[in-house]
């Protein structure tokens, strides 16, 4: 059956060690972090993702058009990265087919590991100077990779929304996948949590992205992303986000 999602490559997309995915969700952590990464690393856009499930919009930046879901490429001396950045929250009805198509594409491109970057809401966020980052792995290889890097494993609880479906698809297809989730505000843009995620990403992938400017611009970013947060909250309400505050029966 033909997928309702298309990955359109505008340049040759090489295989990669990591596919880093950042989408608008809790505290806009994934969006803020991934946008900051692609800007600071001077990445190249190599592909677009399109679907009738995405809103009928196109972005203009510095007089250039950009589709809302893009794949950027970046290579260091010893590692290769792809970054999938989505400017819009995905409607729950499109998440299932997107996850399937994404994993198919990942396998075809011989990508070694998917890294999902985002937030996990905590009511205590206001009191936290440095948010903790939890790491949810899929395969046994992922778990030993995370333990070797000394990360805090996400041991109990629900993950919901697009990242949950991507992790599920990774699990079903035995694809290596990890979600890095920083403690964050649920409904306020959280650049501090985004900086925490980037710091962990640096430590496990060898990237060297300085997060100081991100922290310095924190209040400006929060003021500018107010409307994006509102739109994202509307989508989050439909995507089972409330499950993340729920204790699973398995935890009894």
């Amino acid at each position, binding site marked *: 059956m033909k997928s309702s999602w298309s990955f359109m490559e505008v340049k040759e997309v090489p295989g990669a060690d990591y596919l880093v995915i950042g989408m608008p969700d809790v505290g806009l952590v994934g969006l803020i972090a991934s946008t900051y990464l692609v800007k600071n690393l001077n990445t190249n856009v190599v592909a677009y993702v399109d679907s009738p499930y995405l809103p009928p919009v196109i972005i203009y930046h510095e007089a250039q058009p950009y589709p809302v879901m893009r794949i950027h490429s970046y290579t260091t001396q010893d590692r290769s990265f792809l970054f999938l950045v989505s400017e819009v929250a995905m409607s729950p009805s499109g998440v299932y087919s997107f996850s399937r198509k994404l994993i198919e594409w990942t396998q075809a491109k011989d990508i070694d590991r998917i890294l999902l970057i985002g937030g996990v809401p905590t009511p205590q966020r206001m009191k936290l100077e440095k948010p903790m980052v939890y790491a949810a792995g899929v395969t046994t290889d992922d778990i030993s990779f995370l333990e070797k890097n000394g990360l805090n494993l996400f041991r109990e609880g629900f993950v919901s929304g697009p990242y949950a479906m991507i992790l599920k698809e990774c699990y079903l297809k035995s694809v290596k996948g990890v979600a890095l989730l920083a403690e964050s505000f649920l409904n*306020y843009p959280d650049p501090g949590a985004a900086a925490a995620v980037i710091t962990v990403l640096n430590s496990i992938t060898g990237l060297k992205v300085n997060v100081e400017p991100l922290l310095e611009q924190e209040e400006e970013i929060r*003021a500018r992303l107010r409307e994006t*947060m509102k739109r994202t909250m509307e989508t989050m309400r439909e995507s089972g986000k409330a499950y993340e505050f729920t204790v699973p029966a398995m935890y009894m």
Partner: protein
Amino acid sequence: MEGWFEESFRELRRELKRLLREVEKMVEPIIDAETGEVEPLYEVIDAGDKLVVRVDMPKVNKNSIEVLRAGSKLVIKAGMKEPVRLCDIPFYSRCEVTGYRLELEIPPDIDVERIQAAYKSGYLEVTLPKQRVYRIKVE
């Protein structure tokens, strides 16, 4: 066949709800073009004996924050240290965001004399204690 029909019907209902919300949003002003004020992001937490209104107000000059009780309304106003300019975006090109304004209805069980507010790191927290419960002796 029936399953397919029910799923299509559910999908149609979801889409109609989404469109309705879109229309509602379109009539909601995003920015007051006269004053440059926007409604901040906020949440109301019921903490048992009190309500806590937490408001995200980055870039605010602390001295400009006003928390007012106007009749049955709680009014929060604040000016920014410097305006947020989004001049390259046509929607905002002829105005700048200069401050915040939020109006909320105060529930009748709030002890309005004991309302408190504190501002830290760009977040305003207004605490609205609920009226004390008095036990009435049953004779």
